[in-house]
């Protein structure tokens, strides 16, 4: 089973826990030789960008993430040794935090270049031809495709390629905040960045008013193996983006005669799986979480952690990863 194999490989890079999982034939993703791996929001900043925003202390090393990327690359190569197999890796958007790095209107290539320069080993691994990762544009890097190295970046991927049942996208389109014009959001995010100096005097007030329950710090609350809700209201209560995700799946299915059964997103930084099942209706919203070392305070960033999502053979798992504690060997547990 490729999901078990992936978990074993991740255990060589760090300490692994299964945060949440769902096994259900209604996912209609039965191919056990087809695995999709999701790496959510990295929000990478340059050292200058972090410093300009008021961060102190050394820049995060991303040592764990680098080990994870190298492990996933080796895993992909081993899976692809069987030419009938598929192993596709997706960066789920907001890989680079162009919004926080520079004010609106700055050339994307220049901003992206500054970030890349300070994370060369990380980008070498993330953009390796052996990994062949898809890069999804998020709301914080929605013009990333303008940088030549990211010319292949796109907004969404449906898979498998024939009769797709799953849609992978950043998820910002489901967020009411994104109903405002990009320029507005871009400006607000830059001027309310976490380590901000300019407009500091009103930053906290604005944040409290605008984002009472939106916190950049990721939450990694384990939910274990989940069972689908039987009412749309219950599902909507479990995830703020559920309602629009559900509406999108219905519309896409109608427009393109599809049978989407899962939508995979990043964006919220709170990994969880919410599923709904009622007769023939089924949808799983898979929120893959985040890796936020560059946008957290130095204390919070010192303990690197993040999440990886994966789907294969009618099963989805969200893995939480952190560094081995001292004296800890490679091992894993189910929360």
């Amino acid at each position, binding site marked *: 089973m490729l999901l078990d194999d992936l978990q074993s490989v991740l255990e060589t890079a760090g300490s692994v826990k299964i945060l949440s999982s769902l096994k259900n034939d209604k996912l209609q993703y039965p191919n056990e030789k087809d695995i999709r791996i999701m790496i959510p929001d990295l929000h990478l900043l340059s050292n200058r960008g972090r410093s300009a925003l008021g961060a102190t202390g050394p820049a995060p090393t991303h040592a764990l993430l680098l080990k994870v990327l190298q492990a996933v690359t080796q895993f992909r190569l081993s899976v692809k040794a069987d030419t009938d197999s*598929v192993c*596709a890796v997706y960066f789920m958007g907001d890989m680079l935090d162009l919004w926080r790095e520079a004010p*609106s*209107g700055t050339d994307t290539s220049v901003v992206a270049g500054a970030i890349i320069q300070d994370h060369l080993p990380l980008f070498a691994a993330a953009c390796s031809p052996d990994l*062949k990762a*898809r890069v999804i*544009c998020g709301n914080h890097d929605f013009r990333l*495709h303008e940088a*030549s190295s990211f*010319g*292949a*970046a*796109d*907004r*969404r*991927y*449906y*898979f*498998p*390629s*024939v009769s*797709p049942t799953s849609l992978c996208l950043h998820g910002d389109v489901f967020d009411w905040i994104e109903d*405002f*014009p*990009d*320029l*507005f959001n871009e*400006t*607000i995010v830059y001027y309310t960045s976490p380590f901000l100096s300019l407009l500091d005097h009103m930053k906290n007030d*604005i944040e409290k*008013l*605008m984002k*009472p329950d939106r916190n950049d710090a990721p939450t990694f609350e384990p939910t274990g193996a989940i069972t689908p809700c039987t009412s749309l209201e219950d599902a909507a209560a479990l995830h703020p983006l559920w309602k629009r995700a559900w509406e999108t799946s219905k519309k*896409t299915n109608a427009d*393109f005669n*599809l049978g989407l059964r899962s939508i995979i997103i990043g964006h919220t930084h709170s990994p969880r799986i919410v599923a709904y099942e009622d007769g023939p209706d089924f949808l799983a919203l898979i929120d893959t979480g985040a890796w936020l070392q560059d946008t957290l305070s130095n204390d919070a960033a010192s303990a690197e952690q993040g999440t990886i999502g994966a789907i294969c053979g009618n099963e989805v798992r969200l893995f939480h990863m952190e560094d081995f504690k001292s004296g800890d060997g490679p091992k894993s547990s189910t929360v």
Partner: protein
Amino acid sequence: MVLLKKSIRFAVISVIFYTTSCCCPHPPANQPLPCAVAVREHQLRFDAGLPLQIKDMESLVQFLVAGGDRNVMGEDAVLLGADAHYRPLLQLLAQTENLYVDSLSKSKFSKWFTQKPTFQVVDAREENVPVPGAVFAYPDASFWWIFHQKEGKLIQLIVIKSNPSNN
């Protein structure tokens, strides 16, 4: 109380929105044409001789459905409506009577080519810089359609990814 908080939130956002709208430069309504179109790497490029052959047409449809990225062909779909939208264009490009430079500005192509072409095309694979007018490119929402012509006849097509999908 909740209603009051939501009202305050909306009022603050509205004020900031109108303030920033007035003070900040607005992006252009349409993506501006670049100074030059660069012919991308094999991953993001499809080359075909004209008239299009059936085999090339099917491969090109797959390339377009994959959003113009060979790395995801056969594994992901990006532009779900690409087959229905572009196949009639490819069929036109398979017919010799349509393969003249002037044909592209006629109404039968207007569904796909709504803007004027640019003649600034850079292809570092070529031995020499192009004869002016020998290569030109039409943009659409997701791709550049680059044509080589000789004596007014279209002889080669290159399609490259230009923008992410919007469907």
